[in-house]
């Protein structure tokens, strides 16, 4: 099936082409028109079945057990290559700068182009463009491609039909790119693109830290309860008779750290409650700590 300018029908999608015209490459465009991307095909219900839930379960199981080590990613890449009947493939991870894709696993990349594959800028080459557009990019025949999408060095792989898919979590957060290629001209179907995207999402969940949505889902209700406890405590103190002491003053001062913009609020609150002096005290007065520094005598 080609992702072309023409509207896509389910009938067309069911048709898998045996080959393609030399030099033809396709980038599934975002948005409107008749073009639809693999994710949008999925959401539109035009591609309704992720064809290989067992493969996804296996990949997730490997990563849950071992983590995203180089060895685990290589084994996963080999599974993916086998599933897609491909000979060459790569897994790149987005670096912390968000600018570079670093090679984490590869199969079949010739040593002569390894330095070009090891680090790819987002936006360059098939993997880089897929990462930038957050959509799959494919070239029907790398050997005859003159579009400029694939880097010239890609021909050195001796592959023809190739595709790169972004590794996304929660559909928008980029974690890397996954690429596979065959030695014959080939167009990857919408189902295959959708599966590659799902594989990427499965890998991506283990390639970085938690997303904001995951943190909120896991912690919001529990921490909300603690926030209300803080508020209720302050109300209780205000309702109580008599004088407070250095502890409530320190508490109110420490609360200001919650307004900070840098993710060091816990540290800053602890610092606000700490004894800032540096010299040993003359003698210990008791054994207990009160939780806030009373100040120097």
């Amino acid at each position, binding site marked *: 099936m080609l992702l072309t300018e023409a509207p896509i029908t389910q009938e067309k999608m069911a048709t898998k082409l045996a080959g393609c015209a030399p030099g033809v490459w396709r980038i599934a465009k975002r948005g409107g028109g008749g073009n639809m991307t693999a994710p949008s095909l999925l959401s539109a219900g035009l591609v309704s079945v992720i064809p290989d839930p067992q493969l996804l379960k296996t990949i997730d199981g490997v990563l849950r057990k071992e983590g995203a080590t180089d060895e685990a990613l290589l084994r996963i890449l080999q599974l993916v290559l086998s599933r897609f009947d491909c000979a060459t493939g790569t897994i790149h991870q987005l670096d912390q700068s968000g600018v570079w894709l670093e090679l984490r696993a590869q199969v079949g990349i010739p040593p002569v182009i390894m330095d070009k594959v090891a680090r790819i800028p987002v936006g360059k080459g098939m993997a880089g463009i897929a990462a930038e557009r957050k959509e799959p990019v494919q070239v029907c025949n790398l050997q005859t491609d003159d579009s400029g999408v694939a880097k010239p060095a890609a021909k050195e792989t001796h592959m023809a039909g190739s595709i790169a898919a972004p590794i996304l979590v929660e559909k928008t957060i980029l974690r890397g790119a996954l690429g596979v290629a065959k030695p014959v001209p080939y167009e990857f179907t919408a189902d295959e693109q959708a599966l590659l995207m799902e594989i990427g999402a499965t890998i991506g969940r283990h390639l970085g830290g938690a997303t904001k949505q995951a943190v909120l889902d896991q912690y919001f209700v529990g921490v909300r309860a603690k926030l209300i406890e803080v508020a209720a405590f302050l109300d209780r103190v205000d309702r109580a008779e008599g004088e407070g002491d250095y502890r409530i003053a320190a508490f109110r001062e420490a609360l200001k750290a919650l307004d900070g913009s840098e993710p060091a609020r816990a540290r800053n609150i602890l610092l606000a*409650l700490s004894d800032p002096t540096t010299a040993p*005290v003359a*003698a210990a007065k008791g054994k207990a700590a009160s939780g806030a520094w009373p100040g120097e005598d």
Partner: protein
Amino acid sequence: MRYIEPHAHMVSRTTDDYAAMVTAGCEAVCEPAFWAGFDRSSAKGFHDYFSQLTDYEPQRAAKFGLPHFCWLCINPKESEDVALADEVLAMIPEFLTRPNVLGIGEIGLNKNSRNEMTVLEKHVELAVRHDQLILVHTPHLEDKLKGTRLIVDLLKSDRRIRPERVIIDHVEEHTAALVLDAGFWAGITLYPDSKCTPARAIDIVETHSANRVWLNCACDWGHSDPLAVPKTGREMRKRGHSEAAIDRLLFQNPHRFLRQCPNFSLPGDVPVAG
């Protein structure tokens, strides 16, 4: 999941806790010498306590198939009395030959007093003289920052100290970097109220390092949870950490540190020469 509990005051706990820990995957427990909740009246009380740690408690743990190890010292909470500390320090060498002794600990500071510093220095001297591992307690709450700074400065100023043989315990968000950047191991203690919750402990690991870090429950006679370490493993699993990463933090890290002591050996360990 398997884990090592590297800091638990088991003499304060019931046999139910031993059973629960073993059921949860505990493969060894290590017990630093601690304050009893009251000041002992004489050095004889410490002699009895050290006998309990090196003789009776290992037998109690063995009934549950759990290897028990210990650390010896006079705890910082009793270090204000330097004369008593001297008496206790003098008797420690006779216990260092016991087969379950790991080193000197948990020494350190409580209220950051001069006498506590003096006794800490004496403990460090004892550890160096007998080539022992060191486990350091850092003070509670508002005293932790200052105490950690004093401890790190003292240890760094002694060129005989090898940081990889010292673990500084009870770090929190404001002290973890002080300890790790100086090359020491850092212990994160999991307490329901003071110290760290499982979520905060994993925050520290994620934002600092998982390399020279261990987790412990430090359960004692106070509000504490002997299963806090495996519960933190569960927290890691919920966040998507791999089983391999959980095993590294909960088992392999403490194993790596403790194996520096020839007395620490678990079934399957290759014997250490010497």
